[in-house]
């Protein structure tokens, strides 16, 4: 269980200070698929960064079970990410001078996962594993970044607009793959999106507006990637 209590996060100083997250509190159950939905500037990506330990909040508490994230030192936080967290970004952030296979190895080695070849195969990149990111299409690059995140065998997977830079066809297939994996592996998944249709695939939908949680909805019958509009 991830417990978030009274999180406040601001950027800038004095008159330029902008509070992005205003006293956010929520709980995320183990194995849940949560979508954080909001318009641009609502604070959803900042919430994801803070909850995943990429950024520190100004105040408040984040706990993963018994472990309090906000009290960890930088190196402890790095270690925590190494053992627990996987990331998928909409801009992929692959290492440009490494092949697809080596990019996946980047995540696999942290979890001592020698069988990362299976994941490459599962995301359908066996044929292209020796290609560099610049030789791959957007969808293929995103699949590499998914494989990299999964090769770490994360307990929690954070995704920031994972289909944001993809066309409908590729977007649907990538989303479908993520949803299937979530069902199979049963990890906790937190996805940020501005697309209300994508939110319909989640168990829990958190709607954000101007740095505050506006609504939390439980979705009893999540749709598949091919059932939603785009």
């Amino acid at each position: 269980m991830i417990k978030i209590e009274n999180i406040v996060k601001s950027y800038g100083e004095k008159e330029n200070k902008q509070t992005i997250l205003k006293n956010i509190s929520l709980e995320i159950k183990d194995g849940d698929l949560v979508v954080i939905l909001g318009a641009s500037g609502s604070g959803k990506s900042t919430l994801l960064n803070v909850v995943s330990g990429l950024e520190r909040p100004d105040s408040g508490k984040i706990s993963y079970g018994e472990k309090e994230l906000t009290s960890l030192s930088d190196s402890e936080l790095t270690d925590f990410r190494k053992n627990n967290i996987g990331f998928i970004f909409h801009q992929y952030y692959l290492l440009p001078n490494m092949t697809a296979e080596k990019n996946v190895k980047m995540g696999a080695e942290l979890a001592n996962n020698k069988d990362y070849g299976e994941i490459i195969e599962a995301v359908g990149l066996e044929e292209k594993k020796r290609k560099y990111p610049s030789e791959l299409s957007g969808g293929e690059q995103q699949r590499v970044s998914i494989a990299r995140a999964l090769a770490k065998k994360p307990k929690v997977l954070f995704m920031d607009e994972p289909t944001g830079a993809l066309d409908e066809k590729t977007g649907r297939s990538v989303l479908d793959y993520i949803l299937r994996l979530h069902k199979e592996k049963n990890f906790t998944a937190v996805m940020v999106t501005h697309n209300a249709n994508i939110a319909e695939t989640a168990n829990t939908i958190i709607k954000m507006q101007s740095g505050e949680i506006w609504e939390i909805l439980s979705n009893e019958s999540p749709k598949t990637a091919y059932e939603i509009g785009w």
Partner: protein
Amino acid sequence: MVIGIKNSLKLAGIAIMSFCAVFVCNLFLNFNLDLVRIESELTAEYQTIFYDAVTATGKVVASLSGGCLLLTSVVMLIFYIKQYIHSHSKELGILKALGYSNLKIAKEFWIFGISVFMGAIIGYFSSFLLMPMFYEKQNQEGILPEISINFNLILFLLLVILPSITFAFLSVAFAFVKLKRPVIKLLKEIPDIKIKKFTDKNTRSKKEASFLTELRKATLKSKKTLVFLIAFASFCFSSMMQMSFSMDELASEMFAVMIFMIGVVLSFTTLFLGISTVISANGKTIAMLKVEGYSTGQCEKAIFGGYRPIAYIGFAIGTAYQYVLLKIMVEVVFADFGETVDIPEYGFDIKAFIICLIAFALLYEIVMRYCSGKIRKCPIKQVMESGE
């Protein structure tokens, strides 16, 4: 346009090198040209021998330090322009997409020549401040008649105007070549990566290496100019420092101090520029490694680890180079003296080598520590461009 005076001023390293090069070259070459004016006044044989020796020394020192600094400046300039184009890829791509030709954009790069001009002109005129003392030292035995200091226009043209024009032209030409990339690659900031074919053989051998080892190799391979810079910085440190020890015995204290100063400036500037570029060029990689959970120590090893052996190879080559060069120089400079003067013996200076090696190891590790600090501070959010 995208390039302004500010960008040229950022090339402080090149300006410092131009300053040193022109300062040293003008000191020795101006002296040599002024010597020519009194050549007809030389009557005794010992005067002619001394004249030849002093002239030869001047030529060797000017070409050695000037040439070395000039070469470094060219490498640094090319390196900087490459980095500039890489980091301003989007802006340059937009200009090209709007219809600006490669030549029109490249022409803007002439402004980089200003850094050379600034360094050269300051170096040129400040050398005149030291000249009275230098002339006196060079002829302190009074073997030659009094040598007066003259302004030699040809040196001004050769040492200030010509390098400034050449560097401005070189900047435009190099930028022109580097801009010959598809607009889409510039806009999307897609790096140039040489695609190599995989064979069963190299796949097998690479399967053994860890990810960090492979990343270290890939980082080295993708930045060959940087490898050269690091090796060159170590080469300069090693050769110049060891040479300054020997110069104290072979020539004069003044030579020794001059060579020492040039060595320090050259190696520090190149090493610093090189390492700070490694950090900026690999910012995203470092941030991504940290996101995934790699420790600072692992990031440091992967990004900088490969440069350490290169640095020591540069040091070793510099040691051999200075030994061979001084051996040749002693033979050339003192060849005409015959038995009139005691020809100094030159042998490999173990003491100087050990001192320089320790100093180098210390300097290298200090710079690396500084870099580790930078990595520690490297914000993870650097990769989170979508952060709201």
